[in-house]
């Protein structure tokens, strides 16, 4: 029973981190219908910012959150404005050229970081990195619990933003129909810049929160990009609550896969579920729950 419970707890907690990664992607995919294959690389940049702040200024990662998120917001906005929006005016054979652009952006980000920091592994070990809470025999890693809480808080915040503020409503309008939104006086271009910025800011939070319990190197991004779109598809495009749901489902699925199948097959389990949902459940798991 302990094995089962501990696996479940691990899965849910890692799901919180996954959700944070996915929530930014779901916003980007939902509004702009762009699959952002540089998502993990943006997270990597945020992690390096956090790392530098910690290493040279001694800033706690949780404090860095307030620097890394705005910084990535800016980076995301710049990427959207300079590299993605211009593509809307380009007539290309493949409508997917925006996706391919993000591949290029991801490569460039990775290589710039590699030239600056080298490909060494870096890590940040804080006093609370290994701190654990116990409930009976079940261990809860404290930084992961915190990350989970922040994931929930950010989701709630985003939910409020999208539902209650004028700007948020414009974002939703743009997501539903760009042309119509434009006719209603929404500056669609600015909205996409804003959305990509917010998406990047959110994944920055994921990176910063992950750093105390993980490590980083320039190539770390690709792995998490894959996770991000798996989560987004699982949760349903553009659904913020769906991202939490998708993240936790992926976390649990991987954990159980690792415990009851093999640690080797953890990622296979995630990919297979992803493929099944993509093919048989378009719209993601949220269709089942009607959230």
């Amino acid at each position, binding site marked *: 029973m302990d094995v089962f419970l501990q696996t479940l707890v*691990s899965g849910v907690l890692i799901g919180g*981190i996954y959700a944070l990664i996915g929530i930014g992607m779901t916003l980007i995919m939902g509004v702009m219908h762009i699959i952002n294959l540089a998502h993990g690389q943006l997270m990597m940049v945020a992690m390096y910012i956090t790392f530098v702040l910690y290493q040279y200024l001694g800033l706690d990662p949780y404090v860095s959150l307030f620097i890394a998120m705005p910084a990535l917001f800016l980076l995301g906005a710049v990427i959207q404005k300079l590299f993605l929006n211009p593509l809307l005016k380009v007539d290309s054979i493949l409508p997917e050229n925006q996706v391919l652009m993000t591949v290029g952006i991801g490569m460039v980000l990775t290589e710039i970081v*590699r030239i600056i920091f080298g*490909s060494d592994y870096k890590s940040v070990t804080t006093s609370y990195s290994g701190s654990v809470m116990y409930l009976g025999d079940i261990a809860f890693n404290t930084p992961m619990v915190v990350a989970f809480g922040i994931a929930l808080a950010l989701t709630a915040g985003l939910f409020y933003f999208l539902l209650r503020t004028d700007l948020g409503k414009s974002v939703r309008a743009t997501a539903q129909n760009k042309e119509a939104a434009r006719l209603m006086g929404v500056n669609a271009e600015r909205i996409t810049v804003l959305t990509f910025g917010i998406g990047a800011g959110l994944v920055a939070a994921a990176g910063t929160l992950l750093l105390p319990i993980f*490590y980083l190197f320039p190539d*770390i991004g690709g792995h998490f990009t894959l996770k991000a779109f798996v989560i987004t598809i699982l949760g349903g495009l553009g659904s913020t609550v769906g991202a939490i749901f998708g993240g936790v489902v992926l976390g649990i699925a991987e954990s159980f896969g690792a415990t009851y199948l093999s640690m*080797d097959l*953890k990622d296979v389990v995630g990919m297979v579920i992803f493929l099944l949902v993509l093919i048989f459940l378009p719209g993601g798991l949220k269709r089942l729950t009607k959230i």
Partner: protein
Amino acid sequence: MKRLLTMTLACAVGLAMLSFLGCSSEQKTEKAEKAEKAVVAAPAGDTVTVGIILPLSGGQAKFGEVEKKSFDMALDEINTAGGINGKKLVFMYEDDTGRPDVGRSAAEKLINKDKVVMLGGGYSSSVTFAVAGVAQQNRLPFLINTGSADKITEQGWEYIFRLNPPASEYPKAVESFLTEVVKPKSAAILFENSNFGTSSSKEFNETCQRLGIEVVLLEGYEHGGVDFKPLLVKVKEKNPDIVYMVSYLMDASLLMKQSKELQIMPKAFIGGGAGFTLPEFIENTGSAGNAVFSATLWYQTLPYPGAKEYYDKFVKLYDGPTEYHGAEAYAAAFVIADTLKRAKSFSAEDIRQALAETDMTTVFGPVKFKAYDTKTNQNDVATYMVQWIDGNLELVWPETHASKKYMYPIDWAAMWGK
């Protein structure tokens, strides 16, 4: 139609340029090489170039860097002491980025374009294996100093020599420690799903069967995971006497940290080399890494001539500690120099001959290539066991060489608290 024409023309021009580059480069590279030689050469005016293939970028760059520094340090000493019979020794480094296909291309380039007299280096098992194939086919001697998959020296390749022991022998010292001290009944083996991880874990699994230790869990994992708890929770459930892990640095750290979180308390945690002996391991893990054992091939207090001096000089020069990988590289550099000095000429055959006749002592211990079991041209090396005691890596086994008495049995509960 016209477009097609221009296109093809463009291709043609590009190719023509390339072929021009190619044919002129033959002469050019020679010229350039000479020019290069002229710049770097000692007054004697001649150099001998050896190609060294190491991971200088990518995930294994950490180890590659330690090895490159050690090679550089040795090179400096060799040339200061007169080089190769008056000729200056040059190491030409190529980055394999940790990928076998890149390593192969690098070897091709060193052999065919740069015309090196022999190859050295070889960090990861897959890269080394791929490079060894190229070297053997081109009949150019290759001295491996780290790549440890058993297969490499089991092919009967006469041009491939290995300074370090094969992966299966890394835990030799661990074996005697287990039979004499721990006497475990059960073991869990966790390994990274890489060439080194797979082959070492396979071998250790066989060792356990031979010793009558029940292997309750043998499981690989993908590098780069955040959460090892689903794996560790199984370890905890099976409650083995020892946990043996083959991991690179970061996974090693995470495994120990998360083992502490789950309060897994076997009689001993033993690492299979690689990630468990780096100073970063204890930095990352803190108290979770304390009392962890690891197989190793070298320690600075071993009674080999120059071992301590190498360690101290390295620390002084590069402001950071070194470990067995560095010692392997440093020793390899001296073996290369010794071979080239003894070789009748710099032809591949003469160098191979000289390499085969090597019989010297290095900081890494005695070096002599022989055939034993199914292996050929393999240096037979003694192995050791280290343990992290109070934040320091100490040699604990065999006891005759120990720098400190091993810490066993281990009171995890007291050390970790809850």
